[in-house]
């Protein structure tokens, strides 16, 4: 059943012959001829892209290029927008997440999302992280304690929060709130983390913490990050995909994209020759 597969991952796919991406790591997410429309307006055109497992892929491009729409397509966040329509496939471990039998709630458990603006619930720090677990039916206090601690540790917030788990999440600083949202996303055990400009509203120190965190998390998660900060993309990602006017212009190892991009458009964009 699709639900269970999306909770546990498709076992068969792990051993199947997935096309290898250039870096030699098998793709966790495989996008084929993906088109996306808001009503009659097409915003993504024939996107073909492989996102390797346990790596960070940065999506860059000018505003309105479709990178956020693309990001949101990976956990079907666009579904709720009236008139939104997708064509083509986005597969996770070989399973098309736009197939009719896919349980979207289960999908979103596997594919967590962190937004530009941190959005903690007006609850305690503990309850923010435990929220998804409680929704998922976990009531055992010991299990909750354990997962909350583990998630906060992974999000590099435990040391700052452990003595005030009962305090309101809204009392945390902006950077801490963003890490709390990451902890909340991690608590339900995702395999993929989508991040939409996760540090753009933060000061340089909080930004650095988020970047360090991304660096740590990629050992266990497949991460896709949208960023307008070119240097951030260069610092945190293994691969970079450049979008423009809804099309994927170029994708490659981040080092290659930032030193010797193949496409003139990519070069012009990352050197700030247009914007």
């Amino acid at each position, binding site marked *: 059943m699709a639900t269970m597969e999306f909770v546990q991952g498709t076992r068969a796919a792990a051993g199947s012959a997935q096309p290898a991406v250039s870096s030699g790591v098998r793709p966790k997410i495989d996008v084929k001829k993906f088109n996306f429309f808001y009503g009659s307006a097409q915003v993504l055109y024939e996107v073909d892209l492989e996102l390797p497992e346990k790596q960070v892929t940065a999506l860059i491009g000018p505003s309105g290029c479709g990178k956020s729409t693309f990001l949101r397509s990976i956990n079907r966040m666009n579904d709720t927008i009236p008139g939104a329509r997708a064509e083509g496939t986005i597969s996770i471990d070989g399973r098309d997440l736009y197939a009719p039998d896919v349980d979207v709630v289960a999908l979103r458990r596997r594919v967590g999302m962190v937004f530009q603006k941190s959005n903690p619930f007006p609850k305690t720090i503990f309850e923010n992280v435990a929220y998804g677990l409680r929704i998922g039916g976990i009531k055992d206090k010991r299990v909750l304690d354990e997962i909350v601690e583990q998630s906060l540790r992974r999000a590099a917030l435990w040391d700052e929060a452990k003595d005030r788990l009962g305090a309101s999440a809204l009392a945390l600083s902006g950077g801490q709130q963003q890490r709390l949202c990451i902890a909340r996303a991690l608590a339900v055990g995702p395999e993929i983390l989508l991040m939409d400009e996760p540090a753009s509203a933060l000061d340089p120190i909080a930004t650095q913490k988020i970047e360090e965190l991304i660096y740590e998390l990629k050992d266990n998660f497949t991460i896709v990050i949208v960023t307008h900060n*070119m240097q951030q993309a260069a610092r945190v990602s293994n691969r970079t995909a450049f979008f423009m006017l809804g099309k994927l212009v170029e994708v490659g190892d981040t080092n290659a994209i*930032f030193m010797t991009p193949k496409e003139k458009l990519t*070069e012009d964009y990352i*050197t700030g020759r*247009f914007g």
Partner: protein
Amino acid sequence: MNRHFDRDIEQLKELLLRMGAMVEDSINQSIRALLERDTAIAEQVIAADSDIDRMELEIDQHTIELIAKMQPAAVDLRFVATAMKINPELERIADLAQDVCERAIELNREAQLKPLIDIPRLARAAQEMVRQSLDAFVRGDAALARAVIARDDEVDQMTEDSFRELLTYMLEDSAYISRAIRLTFVGKYFERIADGATNICEMVVYLVEGKVIKHAGNVGEVR
């Protein structure tokens, strides 16, 4: 879009070209000092070297500031990396011209060993390679850079020929040895000047094409 960065890049290019002109002048004068046996010219070249050293530091400073402020990427990054590598290469070439002058001063204290034939040809070839390497850099001309690199073997051969001839003098009469050795050094200095031009040209190919052709692909793929 006009970028503030373009002005910085232009300024860096101008500094490098000014340094290149100073280095070319040192080479020209070192050749004159040697061929015309003119110690005064040799001393001028030696004295001028500190200006070139100062220029090297200025360019270094400018380049590091550019990286700190602009965080260049792609072709901009390759330009800055090229500038950082060309700069010490030019300074080293100037040092070699200075070395030629030091040997010239020593040679001028004794009678001329022999009419110079191979060494002037070698010196002109090295000088031309330096000029062309700077032209290739200014124009972003990878084809010219490759043509200059191709001349390196020719220069190596001339150095070898010059050495063999000087060896015959050394074998003939031990009184010739010190002068012949000094001229051998001079030959080697010009060969290394040509090597410097070759290194500059390798960086020009990297700048223009993003390809690393250094060490002629003998070391395999790096990462």
